[in-house]
């Protein structure tokens, strides 16, 4: 079973919930798919056994074979190619490749009628895997300045172990990297906080999950601050509140030291297990 942890708003406690859930339930694997700023390892301090560079293919044009027909350009959904037609017999045409716009889908190379496009690997980051006690751990780290998070997210997800409960720590937001992270999940936990900001972005995340058809529930973090509008939203929308984590000084202190709070506050292990059992029941 795959459970992804997402939010909408950043800083609501996705990683906190993902890490503590992963430590509370047996036979789990944590995939940190927040590849732009992975930080679950700061809590788990896993022993990294494997570090593999991640690549995405970018097109390289074989000038000898290309006749500037433009099929590649028309195929590219991201405008990563421009084809300059030849200007008379003296001036040859040209194909320009803009690698930072390329999503590595391969359509151009596949569709080229003259097989004039080869694919070259571009390094976008690294996938590291290891373990933290019984917990299996994998994360992706996107290179600074690299924009293509989704291919790296998908490469992290390829490590998903079907024999375990897989917990995915998703990036914040509602765009491509989030979709890449939560897609294929059996269930998604949305972590929010009861503030106007948390609620606004929770609403957006709910829209996304409805569109993707992934069942979901909400964890309200710092549940005793802010207002009751988040509770009201969940009631009105028929969204179940899976757990409430109070704004507790002990939790904040442990967080500041990089210690997952279930390690010290064992009573929460029961809470996370109950949430997990509830999710399993929902899916049955």
């Amino acid at each position: 079973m795959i459970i992804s942890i997402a939010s909408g708003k950043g800083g609501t406690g996705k990683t906190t919930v993902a890490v503590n859930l992963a430590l509370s339930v047996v036979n789990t694997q944590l995939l940190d798919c927040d590849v732009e700023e992975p930080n679950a390892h700061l809590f788990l301090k896993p022993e990294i056994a494997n570090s593999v560079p991640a690549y995405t293919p970018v097109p390289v044009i074989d000038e000898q074979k290309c006749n500037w027909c433009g099929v590649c350009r028309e195929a590219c959904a991201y405008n990563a190619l421009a084809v300059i037609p030849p200007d008379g017999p003296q001036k040859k045409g040209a194909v320009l490749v803009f690698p930072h716009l390329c999503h590595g889908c391969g359509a151009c190379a596949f569709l080229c009628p003259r097989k004039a496009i080869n694919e070259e690997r571009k390094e976008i980051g690294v996938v590291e895997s290891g373990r933290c006690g019984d917990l299996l751990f994998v994360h992706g780290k996107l290179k600074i300045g690299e924009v293509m998070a989704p291919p790296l997210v998908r490469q992290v997800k390829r490590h998903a172990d079907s024999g375990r409960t897989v917990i995915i720590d998703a990036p914040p937001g509602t765009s491509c990297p989030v979709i890449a992270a939560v897609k294929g999940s059996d269930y998604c936990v949305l972590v929010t906080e009861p503030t106007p900001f948390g609620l606004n972005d929770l609403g957006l995340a709910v829209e996304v999950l409805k569109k993707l058809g992934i069942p979901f529930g909400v964890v309200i973090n710092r549940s005793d601050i802010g207002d009751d509008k988040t509770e009201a939203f969940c009631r009105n929308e028929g969204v179940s509140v899976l757990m409430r984590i109070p704004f507790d000084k002990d939790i904040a202190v442990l967080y500041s030291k990089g210690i997952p709070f279930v390690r010290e506050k064992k009573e929460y292990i029961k809470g996370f297990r109950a949430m997990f059992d509830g999710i399993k029941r929902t899916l049955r």
Partner: protein
Amino acid sequence: MKICVTSEGKTIDSNVDPRFGRCGFFLFINTDTSEIEAVENGSAAAGGGAGIQSGQLMATKGVKAVLTGNVGPNAFQTLKAAGIEIFTGVNGTVREALEKFKRGEFKSNAGPTVESHFGMK
């Protein structure tokens, strides 16, 4: 000679659009016959690569010069590869720009004038 002026509207009395890749309309003008073709910019709202798409259109249409406000790095690269002259800092109406161009008052650009995504602001 065929040139293109980025425009906010469809007519020669519209204002020059200061953006290249994300302008409202392209006015293709034959400077010899004064014939005008207005093309709505299909890439104005593209997620990315609007400058490349627009540069591509210039190449496909066989334009020799582009008159606009600003050009970003991707559009610049595309236009340069197609051997198209780029004149930036152009303002006022398209008609005024065309007259100034015919009098040789513009100097062509050696590099892009704005960074990527400028036209999205």
